[in-house]
């Protein structure tokens, strides 16, 4: 699977994006006037200590949350104007999430876990199972299709998670501390997998606090106190 790459085509553009949390009279700025551009096919690491605003960054980039100020354009779509259903549709179409704690659906087979995003796109059962199976096989899980998450090792669960993120052919892969819960061997395998995906043209955004993990990306974006550090 390779993605057509137009060099230097902007896929993510943040212009003066701020996110302020308000509770009562207290307002806490988590992101302050962030400008950011990511091109198609890039492998970017967003790195920062906890409390730096990188989780907020991930929520905004992943269309789980809207900026309180500024503009965010993802793959040509202005995100800040969308309603909840619009955001859901955009997530479904353009974003593949990989989580630190895998976040697989419990009591659900690997195959069904991977096929679920396609279900929400309204793709018929037969086709989505075929596509899910193809992705799982490509990630070396062909013999684990009908295993439930509790029957899989951490590394296998994370690969199922990555398969679920890839199955919709999203514009970007958004990985939040994907190696955080894995032993070093499994973690290295996942990083290796990201390298392969990047090599085949996939846009990957890796969010981490660990400079060592961030080092595998071709570009590092440091966040501190809600701002992008130079």
């Amino acid at each position, binding site marked *: 699977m390779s993605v057509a790459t137009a060099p230097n085509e902007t896929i993510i553009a943040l212009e003066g994006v701020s996110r302020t949390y308000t509770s009562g009279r207290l307002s806490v700025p988590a992101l302050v006037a962030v400008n950011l551009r990511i091109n198609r096919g890039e492998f970017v690491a967003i790195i920062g200590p906890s409390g730096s605003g990188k989780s907020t960054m991930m*929520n905004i980039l*992943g269309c*789980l*949350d809207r900026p309180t100020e500024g503009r965010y354009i993802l793959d040509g779509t202005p995100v800040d104007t969308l309603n*909840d*259903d619009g955001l*859901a*549709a955009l*997530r*479904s*179409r353009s974003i593949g*999430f990989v*989580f630190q704690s895998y*976040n*697989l*659906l*419990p*009591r659900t087979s690997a195959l069904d876990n991977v096929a*679920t*995003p396609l*279900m*929400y*796109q*309204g793709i*018929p*059962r037969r086709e989505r199972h075929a596509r899910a199976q193809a992705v799982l096989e490509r990630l070396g899980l062909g013999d684990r299709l009908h295993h439930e998450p509790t029957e899989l090792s951490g590394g296998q669960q994370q690969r199922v998670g990555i398969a*679920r993120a890839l199955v*919709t052919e999203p514009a970007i892969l958004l990985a939040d501390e994907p190696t955080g819960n894995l032993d070093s061997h499994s973690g290295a395998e996942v990083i290796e997998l990201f390298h392969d995906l990047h090599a085949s043209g996939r846009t990957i955004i890796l969010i981490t606090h660990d400079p060592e993990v961030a080092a595998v990306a071709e570009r590092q974006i440091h966040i501190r106190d809600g701002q992008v550090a130079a």
Partner: protein
Amino acid sequence: MSIRDLFQLALGRLGTGKLRTALTMLGVIIGVASVVALVAVGQGATSGISNRLAGLGTNLLTVNPGATFTGFTRGAAGSSTTLTLADATALQSLTGVQAVAPQLSTSKLVVAGSLNTTTTVVGTTPGYLTALAYTMWQGSFLTNASVDSNLRVAVLGATTADDLGLGASAIGTDIEIAGLPFRVVGIMQAKGGTGFASPDDEVLVPVSTASALLVGGTNVRSIGVSVVSADQMNTVTAEITATLRQRHGLTGTATSDFSITNQDQLLATVGSVSTLLSVLLAGIASISLIVGGIGIMNIMLVSVRERTREIGIRKAIGARGRDILAQFLIEALALSLAGGLVGIVIGLAISLVIGVIAGWGFIFSPLTVVAAVGFSLIVGIVFGVWPASQAARLDPVVALRYE
């Protein structure tokens, strides 16, 4: 997302927590089962009572003595002794009257060989057989001759004959009523009535014999009058009233010293009372259905709380609010509908058992079943909507971080 996907999601989920699913459904099961059973019992009782009343005789009028007055105090109806055998004879000749059966009843010990029973002994005339719609099984009924000659003969009801161990061969043998020998001339066919006061548990003797030997006096407790056809009931009632008022010397506005009961009116009254009872019972039972619905709502709310993270995941990978809403709503619907179906089966089983025990058989009402299914669906929607919309409104950022 197709409907089939939604159902597979919801049903798959219910299958993973079978005990909880069963317990949640229990409320609806009990509610629906009790509605179905109580409605069936109500209908069964209605038809049982109607059948029994119809079995007493068709187009039957019953004349009872009126109440006595002691000063200004009215006694119970039937407490006076104004009806006589002569009154009964006089009614015989009215047009539209098919048969007249004066009844002079008392409770006596009846002995046959080594067996005995205390039963109702009714002094009456040959008209009894026709008026009260009995048929003979063995031998013959009382005759006018036996009434005229005060013969000590007896006709047994089917149950009484059974109790005394008397069969076909007993015709012509003697039994003792209150210590006096009576010859058995006939045994009647069982009416197969229901309940405690069986119409088959009685001994019939000539009214003259009863008044001479067993009761005393010529007053009768009631007179049954069967009318030739239903449309003559009112005219015959009027005729009887006129005849008896004349015989009793009542003129002008004087209160009648007797009352006439129309079987059909009684039937209609009983019918409307038991319909009211059925509705009342079903109403009470539907309260348990509401309680069952609240049980579903409770479990669905707990479920939404427990699965907050799962909801977050689903939203992150593309589920819209309405996908989540539909998933949880269908889960609640499946719970209530499955509970409803099980409840219907149990309710029908209960009504079958009660019907067989009480003797009115199994009454299946498709309307009740349809209503029960509809009701449990409504319960599922009403009590499922709120938890489901809670789930649909969850903020994915918050839900994903929920532990």
